[in-house]
């Protein structure tokens, strides 16, 4: 069972899950209430067929796994907003990349400074 970001905009008290096909609505309710202690008012679920995809340059068709999509309505006044997991990661990665870039630029500058007076000599000569 995994929680997924809703494909279309949902009311704030609805959370979307993907579960195995075998689970019924009662199963999902018990699962959430007993294992995760989440109060559930209502559950609506449907079986989704896996996507059919044609493999590039091979021509045959591959089918993805079927799954059950469940829309869970939280009881009471509960609300849940799906957190933004990945945006910070891309920022972090960008800053890391910039750091690397500046580092390599600096090291190249150092290398050039070191070899100022060694014209017509290989780069390892000054090391």
């Amino acid at each position: 069972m995994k929680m997924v970001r809703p494909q279309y905009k949902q009311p704030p008290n609805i959370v979307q899950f993907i579960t195995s096909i075998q689970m019924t609505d009662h199963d999902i309710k018990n699962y959430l209430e007993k294992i995760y202690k989440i109060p559930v008012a209502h559950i609506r679920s449907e079986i989704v067929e896996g996507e059919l995809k044609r493999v590039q340059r091979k021509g045959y068709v591959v089918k993805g796994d079927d799954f059950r999509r469940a829309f869970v309505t939280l009881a009471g006044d509960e609300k849940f907003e799906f957190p933004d997991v990945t945006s910070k990661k891309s920022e972090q990665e960008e800053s890391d990349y910039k750091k690397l870039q500046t580092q390599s630029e600096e090291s190249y500058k150092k290398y050039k400074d070191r070899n100022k007076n060694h014209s017509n000599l290989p780069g390892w000569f000054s090391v």
Partner: protein
Amino acid sequence: MAFNLTKYAVGIIGKFKSTSLANSYIFSPNTQNIPSSSGKCFSSQVTKNLMEFFDSEENWTKGEVKVGRSWKKEELRIKSNEDLHKLWYVLLKEKNMLLTMEHEYKQCYESFPSPERIDKVKESMFNLEDVVRERNKAYWLLETGQTGERPGKVVNNQLGLRYFYKMNEHIIPKASNNKWWKNRKFGFNNKECDRFLSFYREKIFLEKRKARNRDKNHVLGLLKRFPDMDINVLKEQYPHLNIDGLRMSRKSDPHLVPS
């Protein structure tokens, strides 16, 4: 799949510890009870519980999350049933968390850090279930003389290949269960299957023969290069080959200058 396993584990451990686990839920008693759907409750608590589907926030930006290895069977065998029961739910929650995170990263076209965590958790759960099954078997054998496992048998499928069929209970007796007779896919009785099987067996035979010839030529080369080799070691390593026969072969003659 996960759900079926859960049910199985609960059923077995319930036999051992029926009293202590019946009223209190899976985890330690300091967690809050479920608020009834009519009464109000702390919204922060529910959000917190829902956030168990996500990794801790410090791991969101990391490119690699360092974790230990999976649980081994030897380690699980020395744990009590209660501990195993708790550990199962810890692992189940961890698996759900990892699946959620993997899905979300995939949706956002980002790389999921340390995907091997899922395999580790799955291996731990597999080992745990095996240990529980061992205990269940021992208990059943002691009490009833039977293993208590789900019965099954080896049958042929429609292609004529053998597989393990797991039997299950039916409400309607077999003789009058038309649906079962219609859906059962055992046995094969046509020319195409025979043709397929002959080709299939030929393929297996050729693979085996190739492997045997490869070994044979390897041993011949060894005998050629090292004529004073320990023959007993060779015989031990290649029990399916006739080493004495190979030694007599002209191909195993060493590179010696003829005198």
